[in-house]
């Protein structure tokens, strides 16, 4: 558990981050979202003390971060950034093993960990281990960057716009991979982005920052359904809100017994995609299957009910 | 600013009124020996020194920029690798050696100095002019073609003005080297301020050495500074800084 306790950063008397407090549960993804200049990156960089807080403290599993020497603290926290920051003169293996190397793990343990991570990120170790970052595609570089941040099994992984430099299709895949790997490893992740879509898609919890203050912190559904301020409402986008809400819910949640015509949907499909299929094929109900086994059907009315905001 | 003005004033006084500085140089002169160089006036030495530099650098600029323009046109492209080789190799030739080698070919006097200064001065200007002319922003060049400028107009109105700061940097390097090499030119009987230093070295008169060294040093520093100012002003106007 990460506790952020009234943390502030002042530059020439102006607060870039203003008394932000929040709690991040273990094994969850918290996405900090905001416009540029909202203080989101400053907040993130205060957690591994790349920026020293002016006041307040951060506790990781109860231990205040201020008590450790900075470099020791940082070796316990994974850090992945936009544009990956891989060492261009080191091989993929040496890049991924960088933090274990700093922690003086025995070489064979580092090697095993590198191969394990490459496997996890669907990159054939034998093929990629000895390549240099310049020989990888953008998506591969980004994966190696995240693998490097995870290498020492850190208590916490900080990510600053990790997908910012990727094109939309590779970006969507990278997001899926991150979700999958986070579930598999049970990592605790704090991720900064300016993209509300990414925040809703990835976050177990979303924290919205504006002008240095934390204006709302809750589940994606809460943020969309009950925006705390004008700013949050604007951010989650007036007209798109029902659709964003639908995108959070899988079909399996509203499936009911009964028959329906046509091509079936998988139970994990989200409601926005289900709605889209209804409208495109002109049907009022769609059959739902899981692993090829029929579960029942989902109706247009039921989808509509889930999209309604508070009256 | 104040420092600059003070240095200019100091230089002026050193050249025009050397007598004022007897007290400063006297401790360095040999017992009973002359303190201030009087064989030739410092003014005439300065003028002939600067004259050599201006002449050589002017000619070098003209030739180097012309060559750079030719080599950066499509028709001259075949000469580009060669010109790069020549500039690379040429710049490893020590200026003093170029000067010394000019003597067997041309004899003593201002002639070999001028030729050595010219030849050596070509290289930095040529190199920078090529860099400047071949690294123009492609969008600007495209736009220049797009609005219908012909080749000459593009060269004169777009390429040269945009490359000017880089070319000026080359000219500055070249002038600084020329000032230094011209000083050594007095060893081959060219009339330059080096004469004062050499006379001091030959007669063990440190006062001469200091006097000559100070004047040449001040000239170099002030001219360098003036050219830097010119460059920054120019690049600021072009918005590249």
């Amino acid at each position, binding site marked *: 558990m990460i506790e952020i306790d009234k943390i502030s950063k002042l530059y020439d008397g102006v607060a870039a981050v203003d008394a932000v407090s929040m709690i991040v549960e273990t094994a969850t993804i918290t996405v900090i979202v905001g416009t540029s200049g909202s203080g989101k990156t400053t907040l993130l960089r205060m957690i591994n003390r790349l920026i020293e807080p002016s006041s307040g403290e951060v506790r990781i599993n109860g231990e205040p971060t201020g008590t450790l020497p900075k470099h020791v603290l940082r070796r316990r926290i994974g850090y992945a950034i936009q544009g990956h920051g891989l060492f261009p003169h080191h091989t993929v293996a040496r890049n991924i093993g960088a933090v274990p190397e700093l922690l003086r793990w025995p070489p064979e343990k580092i090697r095993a960990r590198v191969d394990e991570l490459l496997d996890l990120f669907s990159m054939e170790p034998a093929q990629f281990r000895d390549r240099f970052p310049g020989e990888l595609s953008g998506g591969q570089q980004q994966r190696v960057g995240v693998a490097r941040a995870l290498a020492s099994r850190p208590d916490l992984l900080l990510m600053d716009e990790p997908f910012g430099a990727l094109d939309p299709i590779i970006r969507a895949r990278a997001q899926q991979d991150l979700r999958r790997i986070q579930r598999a490893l049970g990592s605790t992740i704090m991720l900064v982005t300016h993209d509300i879509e990414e925040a809703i898609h990835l976050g177990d919890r979303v924290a919205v920052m504006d002008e240095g203050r934390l204006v709302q912190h809750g589940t994606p559904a809460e943020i969309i359904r009950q925006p705390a301020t004008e700013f949050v409402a604007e951010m989650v986008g007036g007209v798109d809100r029902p659709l964003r809400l639908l995108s959070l819910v899988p079909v399996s949640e509203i499936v009911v017994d009964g028959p329906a015509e046509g091509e079936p949907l998988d139970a994990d499909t989200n409601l926005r995609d289900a709605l889209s299929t209804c409208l495109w094929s002109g049907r009022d109900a769609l059959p739902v299957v899981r692993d090829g086994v029929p579960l029942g059907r989902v109706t247009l009315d039921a989808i509509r009910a889930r999209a309604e905001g508070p009256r | 600013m104040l420092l600059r003005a003070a240095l200019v004033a100091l230089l002026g006084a050193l050249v025009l009124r050397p007598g004022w500085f007897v007290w400063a140089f006297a401790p360095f002169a040999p017992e009973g020996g002359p303190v201030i160089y009087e064989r030739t006036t410092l003014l005439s030495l300065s003028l002939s020194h600067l004259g050599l530099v201006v002449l050589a650098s002017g000619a070098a600029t003209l030739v180097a920029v012309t060559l750079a323009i030719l080599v950066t046109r499509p028709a001259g492209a075949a000469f580009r690798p060669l010109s790069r080789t020549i500039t690379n190799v040429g710049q490893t030739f020590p200026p003093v050696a170029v000067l010394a080698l000019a003597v067997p070919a041309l004899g003593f006097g201002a002639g070999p100095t001028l030729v050595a200064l010219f030849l050596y001065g070509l290289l930095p200007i040529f190199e920078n002019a090529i860099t400047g002319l071949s690294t123009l922003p492609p969008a600007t060049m495209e736009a220049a073609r797009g609005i219908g400028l012909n080749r000459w107009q593009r060269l004169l109105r777009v390429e040269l003005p945009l490359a000017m700061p880089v070319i000026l940097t080359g000219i500055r390097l070249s002038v600084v080297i020329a*000032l230094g090499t011209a000083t050594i030119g007095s060893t081959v009987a060219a009339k330059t301020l080096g004469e004062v230093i050499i006379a001091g070295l030959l007669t063990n008169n440190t006062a001469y050495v200091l006097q000559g060294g100070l004047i040449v040093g001040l000239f170099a520093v002030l001219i360098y500074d003036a050219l830097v100012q010119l460059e920054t002003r120019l690049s600021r106007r072009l918005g590249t800084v």
Partner: protein
Amino acid sequence: MRMRDAGPALLAPGLLFAGLGFAALLAPFMTLAANRIVAGEGVAVWRVADPVVTLPGIVALAAGLGLGLLTAWPRVRIAGAAMGLAGLVWLLSQGATVLLDGAGQYARVSPGAGFWCLLVILALLLADALSQLSPGPLARALLLAAVVGTLALLLQSGALSQLSVMREYASRQDAFGDASLRHLGLAFGSLAVAAAIGLPLGVLCHRRETLRRALLPVLSFLQTIPSLAMFGIMIPLLGWVADTVPGAQSVGIAGIGFAPAFLALVLYSLLPVVANMLAGLQSAPPAVIEAARGMGMTDRQRLFRVELPLGLSVILAGVRIVLVQNIGLAVIAGLIGGGGFGTFVFQGLNQTATDLILLGALPTVALALSAAIVMDILVELTRPIPERTP
């Protein structure tokens, strides 16, 4: 348009070399003088010896220049240049013996303008052809070794010992050895000291903006001061140190000689060393530095594991600048009794003995060129990112 398709690419530089080369054949190839001081008389290339001797040489030269025209075959051009150079050496060594025969005890023969022009043209032809092949670092190192080896063999063999410059050498062998050592000591020693001071200064400048702002302008102004003035100003300065600091004289610090020359060279070297160290350290992309900091590297670890390896080639490029510059500037030391090849240059200028000037200037040029080539190879080898095809 048709011109451009076939014309320049095939002909341009080769044609230039051939044109200039044949023109140079008409210039006096060697000079014959009554003694080492007076100006010599030019001798055309076909007159330096019997046609039996000159003809093969001239043919080799002409053929070499002709092969240089074949732009499409760089290897053939290289062979042509080598053949031309061989012809040049043949003519020179044969001509020297023939011309000196019966010309008097004090007579001297020297290469003339024609020889020097042809040498430069053929060397450029060789360089141009080589740049077409763009050889790797190893090939260039072997090539340099081959050229230096050939030159050494040629000088050892005595084929050129009749030449005036070699006669000057013969009468000064010991002095030449001393001067070489002194010259190398000045150039490399000052580089070592400048590196010892400048590299840590570069690191400090990298870390502290204020120091960088204060130091760099001072160093670039130092660089601006003409060398003779700098050497001159060092004299009273070190003279004063020698007189006032106890023990300074016993370690060799004196107003004239080696010490002021050495100090002046060190001062000149500081700017390139510091500036390139700084540029090298700053060449690491900001994201890489951010990542290094974020993963918990200490300042030291970041310096040695990331910044230095990534900047090494830029830093070595600074060393190259300094080395080439110092080899040249060390000549000036000859004026203030600092020794080195400059001693011969300035003695030669004083005595108007051309060949003595050459004895100082030619080794300097050769040394500077070799140092530049070796350093270029090192710079290329230390590029941080190995170039590999994926």
